[in-house]
């Protein structure tokens, strides 16, 4: 079983839609959760960094962590064509040897 599972999509939505991206994980020690956006031929760009359970909001982006279900989500409100990219979740724990575990990424296309 992979440490982190993420639906690869592809996901296609109309401009202005609310997008929901999700990851599940198996290691209950994970406490630090990140979402990255990766454009084609570019490196991942950090969007959100959260600790433990709860919600965190930054502009149009909201990250949710449900540790009891081992499930994290990223919501994008008022999606724009410029949001078209691959979204990667990543997670870590204090005892994982400084290693971050990534999902496979979800490909998102926002149609004008």
């Amino acid at each position, binding site marked *: 079983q992979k440490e*982190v599972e*993420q639906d*690869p999509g592809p996901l296609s939505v109309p401009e202005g839609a609310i997008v929901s991206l999700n990851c599940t994980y198996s290691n209950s020690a994970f406490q*630090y959760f*990140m979402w*990255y956006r990766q454009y084609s*031929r*570019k*490196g*991942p*760009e*950090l969007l959100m*960094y959260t600790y433990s359970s709860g919600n965190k909001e930054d502009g149009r982006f909201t990250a949710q962590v449900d540790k009891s279900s081992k499930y994290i989500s990223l919501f994008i409100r008022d999606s724009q064509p410029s949001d078209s990219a691959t979204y*990667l979740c*990543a997670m*870590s*724990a*204090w005892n*994982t*040897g*400084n*290693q*971050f*575990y*990534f*999902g*496979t*990424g979800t490909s998102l296309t926002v149609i004008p």
Partner: protein
Amino acid sequence: DAGVTQSPTHLIKTRGQHVTLRCSPISGHKSVSWYQQVLGQGPQFIFQYYEKEERGRGNFPDRFSARQFPNYSSELNVNALLLGDSALYLCASSLRQGRVPQPQHFGDGTRLSIL
């Protein structure tokens, strides 16, 4: 401010050769990590270095090695290249290394193709 810079951007090698990839972290960042990203997959952790010492190692063979220099830049070396080493190699930097994992900032990577 300059982000994480990596060189070269693209590289073509043949099986059995060796390669050296270079990374300069964000100014002030002392920790550097290396990741391998195969097409269609998420990045996989290879190494982390902090203050010139290896602080973490992923599940990669001994053909992979790295080092960090006094100015915090880093090199990743891969010997005896295999076709399966074809990937995007990403370098990430963070302020420091400690008990709490630090958010990592990535460069645009080196795309390595093995023929």
